[in-house]
C-alpha cells in the first residue's frame, strides 16, 4: 500500500473518493488497496508500466470491471458521497462515461445514431429537434461537427481512426456524464489526431471530470492537472502533476519518469 505522504489529496471539490479498492481477476488481484480522491472538473492522468492495473482501476470507476469473467471488486468508491458499488451499475455507467483504447463506433449505425446510441440502445425516445440538438452539441464538444455535419447519415466506420475516436467521445458526452474515463484514447492514433484529442481533453474539463490512462509521460504532462502513478497494482503516488513530475516523492515514480521501465 502506498504510504500516506505520497498520496496527496487534491484541493477544491472532490468527485470520487476511493477507499481501499481491490480488484481481482479470479484469485489474482490487479488493483491492490488503492485509496485516493479525484478532483472535480480536472484532468487526472493515470500512469504506470504495462500491466500495472491502470485499465482495471478505471474500469472499476464505472463498474465495467465486473463484466470480465471471474472479476470481483472490494472496497468503497464514493461518487459525490454515494458508494457506487451499492447502486445499480446501469445508473453508474450513465454518470461515468468511457472512451476505450481502440475506437469502437457501432458499425451498424450511422454517425447520427452513434452519437445518440446512449438513448437509442436504452429505448429512450427523443423528439426530432431535441435529437438534432443533442447530436450537434455533442459533436461540437468533440470537435467533430465541422468535419461530419454533411455526412451525419453515413456509417460511422467510414471515418478515419482519429475521427472515429472523437465520435466515440461525442457518443459518451451525449448522455451528459459527470465523469469521462479515457483508456489510452490516443494509443491507436497518429500524432496529428493525438494532438487534436489532447486539445479536446483540456477543453472538456470545463464541463466534465476526466480520468485519462496514458502510457505517454509527455502527454500526461501536457493535459493533466493531477497524476496517479501505479506500480504492480498499487497506487504508489498521487498528486498535482507539476509536483509529481518535478519532485516525485517515491523512488519508483522517479525511475518511471526517467524512463527506467515501460
Amino acid at each position: 500500500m502506498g504510504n500516506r505522504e505520497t498520496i496527496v489529496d487534491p484541493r477544491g471539490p472532490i468527485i470520487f473518493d476511493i477507499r481501499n479498492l481491490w480488484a481481482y481477476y479470479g484469485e489474482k488481484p490487479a488493483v491492490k488497496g488503492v485509496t485516493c480522491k479525484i478532483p472535480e472538473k480536472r484532468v487526472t492522468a493515470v500512469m504506470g508500466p504495462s500491466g500495472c492495473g491502470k485499465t482495471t482501476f478505471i474500469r472499476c470507476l464505472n463498474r465495467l470491471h465486473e463484466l470480465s469473467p471471474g472479476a470481483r471488486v472490494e472496497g468503497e468508491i464514493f461518487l459525490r458521497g454515494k458508494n457506487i458499488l451499492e447502486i445499480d451499475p446501469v445508473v453508474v455507467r450513465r454518470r461515468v462515461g468511457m472512451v476505450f483504447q481502440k475506437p469502437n463506433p457501432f458499425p451498424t449505425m450511422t454517425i447520427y445514431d452513434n452519437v445518440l446510441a446512449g438513448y437509442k440502445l436504452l429505448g429512450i425516445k427523443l423528439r426530432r429537434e431535441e435529437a438534432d440538438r443533442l447530436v450537434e452539441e455533442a459533436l461540437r464538444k468533440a470537435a467533430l461537427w465541422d468535419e461530419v455535419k454533411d455526412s451525419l447519415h453515413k456509417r460511422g466506420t467510414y471515418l478515419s481512426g482519429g475521427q472515429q475516436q472523437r465520435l466515440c467521445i461525442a457518443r459518451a458526452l451525449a448522455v451528459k456524464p459527470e465523469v469521462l474515463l479515457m483508456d489510452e484514447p490516443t494509443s491507436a492514433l497518429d500524432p496529428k489526431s493525438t494532438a487534436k484529442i489532447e486539445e479536446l481533453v483540456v477543453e472538456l474539463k470545463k464541463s466534465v471530470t476526466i480520468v485519462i490512462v496514458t502510457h505517454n509521460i509527455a502527454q500526461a504532462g501536457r493535459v493533466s492537472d493531477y497524476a496517479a502513478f501505479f506500480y504492480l497494482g498499487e497506487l504508489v503516488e498521487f498528486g498535482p502533476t507539476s509536483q509529481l513530475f518535478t519532485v516525485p516523492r517515491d523512488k519508483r515514480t522517479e525511475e518511471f519518469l526517467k524512463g527506467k521501465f515501460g
Partner: protein
Amino acid sequence: MGWGDPDRIFYRLCWGLSLGMVFLVIGIGITLFWGSLPSLKAFGWHFLVGRIWDPVNEKFGALPFLVGTLITSFGALILTLPFALSSGIFLAEYAPPRVADGLSTVIDLLAGIPSVIYGLWALFYLVPLVRWVEMKLGVIPFGLGLPTASLVLAVMILPYAASIIREVLRMVPHELKEAAYGLGATRWEVIRGVSIPYGLSGIVAGLLLSLGRALGETMAVTMVIGNRSEMPRSPWDLANTMASVIANEFTEASKDIHLSALIEIGLLLFLITLGVNILARIIILRLQVR
C-alpha cells in the same frame, strides 16, 4: 521437383478431389435434367402449376408438392425461430461458458439423430398431440398432415439453427458490447441493440441453411404428412412434399412418364435447395469480407 514431389502429388490430389466434387454436383444436375426430359417435353410449364397428380390417367402437375414442401418448411422455420433465437442467445450471452459448452454438445448430438427416429417419435407423440388440438378446434382430427410435418421439421432444424445463431453471436466483437455497456445499456439492450444487428446477416444465413435442410428432409416427413397427393385445402390438411412423393412412388412407378415426372420433381427440389444454400453462402461470404 515435379511429379515425384510428395507435396505436389498431395496438392494435385486435393485439387482433383475438389474438382471431382464440383463435377459430381453438376453431374447430378445433368442426370436429373436428362431423366426429366420426357416430362419436361410433355407438360412444359404446366408441370409447375398443375394441381392434379394422377398417375393412372397420366396427368402430372407438381403444384401440390411444391405447396406442401413450402408450407411445411416455412412453417417449420417460423415455429423454430423463437426457440432457436432464444436458445442461441441464451447459449451465447447468458449461460456460463461451461454450461454453454455442455448444452452445445447435447444440441450437436440432437442434430445427429437419424431422421427415421424423429419420425417414430412424431408418430408416437406429435400425432396424438396434434389430433387433440384438432379436436379442440373442431377440424377433422387426422393427427397427420401439414401441422405434424411442420412440427417435426421444426424440432429437427432447431439444433442446427440454434447453434448457428450461437456462433454468429459469439463473433460479435467484445469492444462493441463494452461500448454499449459503458453507455448504461443492460444485457438485453446490448443483445437487442448491438449483437443482433451486428450478426443479423449471419442469423439470416443460418436460418436459410436450416430452411435448406427442411426442404429436403424426407423420412420423418413422409411418416407423418399423410401422403395425399392433392392440393391441401387448409393448414390442417393431409398433404405430400416433393421429397416424400418421390420416396413413396419411385419404386412403384411403372410408366416411363410417371418416373420422369418424379425425376423432374427431384430436379426442382435440387434447384430450390441449391438456390437457398447458395444464397446463404453468399450472405456468409459478404459477412466475412466485412
